[in-house]
């Protein structure tokens, strides 16, 4: 099974992703199974009550809920820092209670809020801790530690420093590197980014998604921040006080169909807007009609509903909006700022809408991956696309979050900070497809289902959110997102 630590070490993570994502349309096979687990502390507090949860392999599962709802307790039962008082936990089909506790823990990286670094060891030695315990020689362990510093975005010059010489954000990166050092298949993270300021946190989240796209670990991530959960989670378990599971669903499904009032309340007010993050802008109607190169003759370009022209440089990059009346030439020297454009097809309808709302003209500027203008679009057009996207999803009410209803992975790259990463929004697994003919064959079943359903049910919407049945992304169930 894929969850076996040795198997992980041997197979390339991408090959593993491909297998997982293609063989089951909805989610990867279970790696960690929490089975009717209860934890009652000595003082009688029931921290976790009859919790059952299947944590899929190779993706990020977030445990989210208010403080004191039993998230930490649940996480610590997975590496046996806390023993359950009832039920059992299976790792790759094996009861973890039967396994030697320290070996079990070394197969799981653990990251906590304040990093918990060893203050008496240098950064490189902190990271090399587990490899050293596993018997690696000093040189190899240090080499591995240096590799990991690079992977988590730490300057190699910090290697010989001590933790007190690092900022909180840097310490947290060291914590992640240390957890990854022995290449464990599982990563347990307990509010790892809660104690850093919002800007650093955003960077760390993006970094985690990037690392996850490269390594395909099974990550159990605890947070009390629902936005962080939605940003990072492939699956989200919402817990309520007393250690009860309120809902376990992919983020898109959580936002569209909260199970009860508690979940709805916990999600906050603007979940409609936030859900747009999961709708791709790929099929959005854009027009190049009111787009002109600077200095060019603008005659006939001005739309009746838009008294502006978008001016680009000779290379097609946007310069700004010029006021223009029909039949007149605009003043190319007097431009309004065009604001942040969105990348058509890569960013979501939420980004498109945001750009439109912020634009001085009310129209959003769409660019391609290289930053050249692909067209402009109005708030009305975006609103139409949103309605169509919703309509397309309602055709699959029985299967929310499943492959057919889950549009590609539109949110793959909302993160404009990282365009290089985001350039490949498709599930990285897709490319591996031919490597695994057997798995690919498995995958045909769901693909076929999609093929028969999608065109029939959503004839009007080939665009925004329904991927072609043969688009590999569409088959990927709940895909591992590159960045968000």
């Amino acid at each position, binding site marked *: 099974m894929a969850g076996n630590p040795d198997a992980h070490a041997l197979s390339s993570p991408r090959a593993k992703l491909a297998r997982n994502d293609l063989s089951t349309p909805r989610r990867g096979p279970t790696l960690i199974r929490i089975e009717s687990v209860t934890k009652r502390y000595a003082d009688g507090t029931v921290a976790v009550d009859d919790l059952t949860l299947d944590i899929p392999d190779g993706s990020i599962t977030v445990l989210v809920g208010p403080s004191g709802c039993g998230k930490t307790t649940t996480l610590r039962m997975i590496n*046996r820092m806390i*023993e359950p008082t009832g039920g059992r936990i299976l790792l790759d089909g094996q009861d973890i209670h039967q396994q030697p506790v*320290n070996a079990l823990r070394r197969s799981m990286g653990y990251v906590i809020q304040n990093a*918990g670094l*060893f*203050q008496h060891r240098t950064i490189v030695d902190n990271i090399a801790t587990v490899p050293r315990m596993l018997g690696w020689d000093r040189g190899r362990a240090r080499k591995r530690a240096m590799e990991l510093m690079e992977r988590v975005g730490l300057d190699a010059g910090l290697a010989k420093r001590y933790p007190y010489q690092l900022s909180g954000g840097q310490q947290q990166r060291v914590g992640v590197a240390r957890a990854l050092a022995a290449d464990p298949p599982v990563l347990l993270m307990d509010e790892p980014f809660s104690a850093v300021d919002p800007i650093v946190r955003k960077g760390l989240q993006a970094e985690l998604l990037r690392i996850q796209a490269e390594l395909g670990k099974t990550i159990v991530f605890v947070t009390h921040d629902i936005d962080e959960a939605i940003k990072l989670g492939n699956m989200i378990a919402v817990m309520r006080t007393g250690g009860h599971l309120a809902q376990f669903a992919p983020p898109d499904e959580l936002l569209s169909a909260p199970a009860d009032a508690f979940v709805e309340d916990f999600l906050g007010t603007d979940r409609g807007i936030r859900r747009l993050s999961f709708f791709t802008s790929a099929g959005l109607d854009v027009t190049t009609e009111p787009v002109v190169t600077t200095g060019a003759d603008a005659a006939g370009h001005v739309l009746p509903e838009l008294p502006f022209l978008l001016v680009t440089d000779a290379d097609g990059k946007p310069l700004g909006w010029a006021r223009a009346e029909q039949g007149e030439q605009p003043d190319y020297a007097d431009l309004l700022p065009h604001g942040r454009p969105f990348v058509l097809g890569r960013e979501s309808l939420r980004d498109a809408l945001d750009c439109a709302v912020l634009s001085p003209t009310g129209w959003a500027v769409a660019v391609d991956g290289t930053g050249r203008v692909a067209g402009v679009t109005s708030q009305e057009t975006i609103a139409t696309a949103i309605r169509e996207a919703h309509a397309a999803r309602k055709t699959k009410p029985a299967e929310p979050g499943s492959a057919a209803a889950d549009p590609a992975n539109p949110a793959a790259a909302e993160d404009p900070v990282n365009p290089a990463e985001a350039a490949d929004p498709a599930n990285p697994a897709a490319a591996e497809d031919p490597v695994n003919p057997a798995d690919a064959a498995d995958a045909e079943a769901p693909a076929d289902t999609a093929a028969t359903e999608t065109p029939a049910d959503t004839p009007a919407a080939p665009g925004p959110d329904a991927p072609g049945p043969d688009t590999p992304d569409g088959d990927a169930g709940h895909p591992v997102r590159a960045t968000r």
Partner: protein
Amino acid sequence: MSAYFDIPSDLQHSYLGLIALHLQEALLPVLFGLLIALPIALVCARFGWLYPPVLWVTTVLYAIPSLAFFVVLLDYTGDSTTTVEIPLTVYSLVLLVPAIVEGTRAVSPDTVAAATAMGFGSLRRFVQVELPIAVPAIMAGLRLAAVSSISLVSVGAIIGNEGALGNLLHDGQIYHRNPLIVTSVVTTALLAIVVDGLLVGLQVLLTPWQPHGRRAARRARTAAAVEPATEAELRPGQEADAPVLEDAAR
């Protein structure tokens, strides 16, 4: 000058010889005390319920006057350095056990949790993580033990010829040679100051991971400022939920 350094022959030592004897009688017990305190502290750290009774016993031992201790031991170890060293070892122990236990207990729960999660067993964790991090606390205990031991050695003069610089003081009194009293007192004080200074130096060597002095502290702040670190980032977590670690070996 000779009034100060002309040592009476009944002491059987030169001035430097007295200093060497004094240091030996004072510091060997501290060393033994440390060696005995470590395993006791380990056991106390592992089995928390043992610590209060151990603390009680050591405190009661500390309450025994040194003189009574010496007199009882005379019957067994006679007029030897051992008679002085045994009580001093016990006193060191009394200072060092709490220093080590409290020091290792003060290690941040995050660090302990991280070590446990990385698969450190409790012995390995104690030796490789908790003990090194407790070095500043242990050094504070060692300094106290060393300085009080240096001053207590003098009491050995009362039971015979094993008080080192204390015997010099005693001779100064019986021979009415005040300069010898001055020499004894000043030398003892200087020894304490020098030994304490050396221990501080040792601590600096042992803890390169601690900000030492103002320059290092400033460097640390600068390093932290490289990234847009805010107060929030450097402050320990707002949500203090560190459930007591349960031991998993059941």
